[in-house]
């Protein structure tokens, strides 16, 4: 477990099942979390995570060290989950294809989220993220949970890179709106 990641990776690439098991132990929680954010339910996420590790094991030899291993693994996971979502037949409206996402003029909107992060606040942010429409939740999750770059996200979601930036930004604004609304409801 304590062996540096590179040596574990080398052993795993050589086909050592023990090494791959270590990789599984290191990353399964994070991959499961990603799948859960992307797919929405625990059951589907568990199925997806096991499938992702199966695919990763098969593809181990194609892994090149130019890319950090976590990024490589998360991109397998996000590709798989996005495929699943597409298969649900919803992509027609989640991913609006290649049309550019239009810029909205700025208007009076809630400001960025406050600084204090109490437990309660964190839970409400979690709830708000989960309540985001998929078109926003996916890019936000891929960016801030899996640390993928705009290019990687664009490739995964099959949309122009410029759309990724806009969707991420709009996702944040939507998040502010949801939280502001929840705050009002909580007060009244």
């Amino acid at each position, binding site marked *: 477990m304590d062996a540096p990641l590179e040596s574990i990776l080398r052993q795993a690439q050589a086909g050592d099942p023990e090494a791959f098991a270590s990789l599984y132990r290191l990353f399964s*929680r*994070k991959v*499961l*979390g*990603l799948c*859960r*954010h992307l797919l*929405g*339910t*625990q*059951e589907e*996420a*568990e*199925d997806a995570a*096991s499938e992702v590790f199966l695919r990763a094991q098969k593809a181990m030899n194609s892994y090149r060290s130019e890319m950090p291993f976590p990024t490589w693994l998360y991109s397998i996971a996000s590709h798989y989950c996005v495929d699943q979502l597409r298969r649900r037949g919803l992509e027609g*409206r989640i991913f609006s294809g290649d049309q550019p996402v239009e*810029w909205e003029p*700025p208007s009076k909107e809630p*400001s*960025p*989220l406050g*600084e204090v*992060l109490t437990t309660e606040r*964190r*839970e*409400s*942010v*979690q*709830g*708000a*993220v*989960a*309540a985001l*429409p*998929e078109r926003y*939740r996916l890019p*936000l*999750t891929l*960016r*801030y*949970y899996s640390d993928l*770059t*705009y290019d990687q996200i664009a490739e995964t979601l099959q949309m122009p890179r410029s759309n990724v*930036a*806009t969707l*991420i*930004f709009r996702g*944040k604004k939507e*998040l502010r709106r949801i939280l502001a609304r*929840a705050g009002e409801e909580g007060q009244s």
Partner: protein
Amino acid sequence: MNCFPELTYSIYLDQELSADERHAVETHLAICPACRAQVERLSVENRLIAEALESGGEGLAAVPSKEGLGFPLAWVLPAMMGGIFALSWTVRWISSNFPVSANWFNPFNRTAILNFFLSVAFFLSAERQAIFHWFGLAVTSLAVGLIVAGGIYLLLRRWPLHFALLGAVMIFAGPGKPAYAIETRNSGQTVTVPPSETVADSLEAGAQYVEIAGRINGNLIAHGQKITISGIVTGDVITSSQTLDIEGTVQGNVFAWGQFVTVHGKVGQSVHVFAESLELANGGQVGGDVLAFCQTVNINGNVNGGVAVGAASVMLRGDVDHGVYASAGQVRVASSAHIGQNLVARVNRTRDFRLDPGAVVRGKTEVKLSGNRGSRFLTLHYYLWRAVELCAVWLTGLVLFWLFPSLFQGKLETSSDLLKAIGWGGVLLVVTPVAVITVALTLVGLPLAIMALMLWIIGLFLVKIFVAPVIGNRLMGTVPGAKKPFAVPLLLGLVVIFVAVALPYVGIWDSSLVTLTGFGLVLSAARQTWGRRRSLTP
């Protein structure tokens, strides 16, 4: 220099600007405190989102996405209300323009529904064998129905359920009439409505003797030892009594439970009797059908509809305009009898049926022999139908699993799970009919009650689908939680269940056990789904 839009700062913080752009932004930030503050806030926000995602990814599952059908809510709501109104209006129109001859089938007519269900109950008990054979086909049609319903569900499931429920309530409330007022009279000895009196509403009466000589403008609901109607009841008569004598006129239907039921007078619609004896006296008249389970049935008067009876002995002397179906120990059609359509008698031996010379049967006369037919296990027919039924149930299960996988998440791993499932199953099994009866007492609730009852009856047939995969997985040694195959364990489990419930003597117990467990499993799955939804609502 002008400030950049917030989007640019968001991209800047994500380190996705080109070198030139980044340089321009940084130059600006150096001189603009407002933008610096904005960038600071954005950066905190990014950290918040990352932290929330981080802890959320390991704790809770995400709330199911609440996306609608892709239309704005504000647009859909009025459209939906309009749709409901139109539907409600259509229902009302259909209801009032329903052809009288087909009124028994009118789903919006309370009496028609009751008549329909009583008829179904009758044939279910009298013609169980035949119906059982048709069940395989029925389940297949059900599967098709489920696919259609499932399609609609898939369209609607991202839509809050309560709108759909609200719609249903409005549809039924729309054409509904306000419930009648009911007057109640209870006394130890006698309740009398004298000839001079007119009761403006429906009357509920309970006494040892109930005598209706006057007029009731509504329904009569009565219980007592002896009930006599010599006056007029404009609505239905529902009684539970030792003796019921109808000498006057009932313009609606009669539903009677008791020992002796005699009709000397006139009943405008149908007569439903569950009693020791039913006599339609000479001169008595029934405008609709006669449905009776009795020991003895004597039809001496006129029936404008048909007669369907299950009895020990049936005697027919009068006129029946439609057909006669009698399943009885003995059936006799006297020479004075006149039957407008077919006569079907189900008796044990040929000599138990007697058609006197002079009796007129306009349609066909058919005598079916019931009784000793040998063991059902010896006929190929039996196995063929069981196979058809098995396939139908299996297919239904696959469709159900495909549409509602969450229905199958009930756990049955320990014996306490099993006991719990059986317990809850029992509760559901008992509570549903009670709730149905309670709801059915209100006029608006009746269609809902009927829907619930139908679901419940369908449930009785279908619950084995939920037990089967558990048994199948157990037999195949599938590890719980692993990626599960479904079709094969379902089939295996169904085979086991089909064999178990077909066994002589113990089959009935197996069947009850499966039913209870199945109901319990469905309930537990529903509670899990509901519980998870609730715990996730922020």
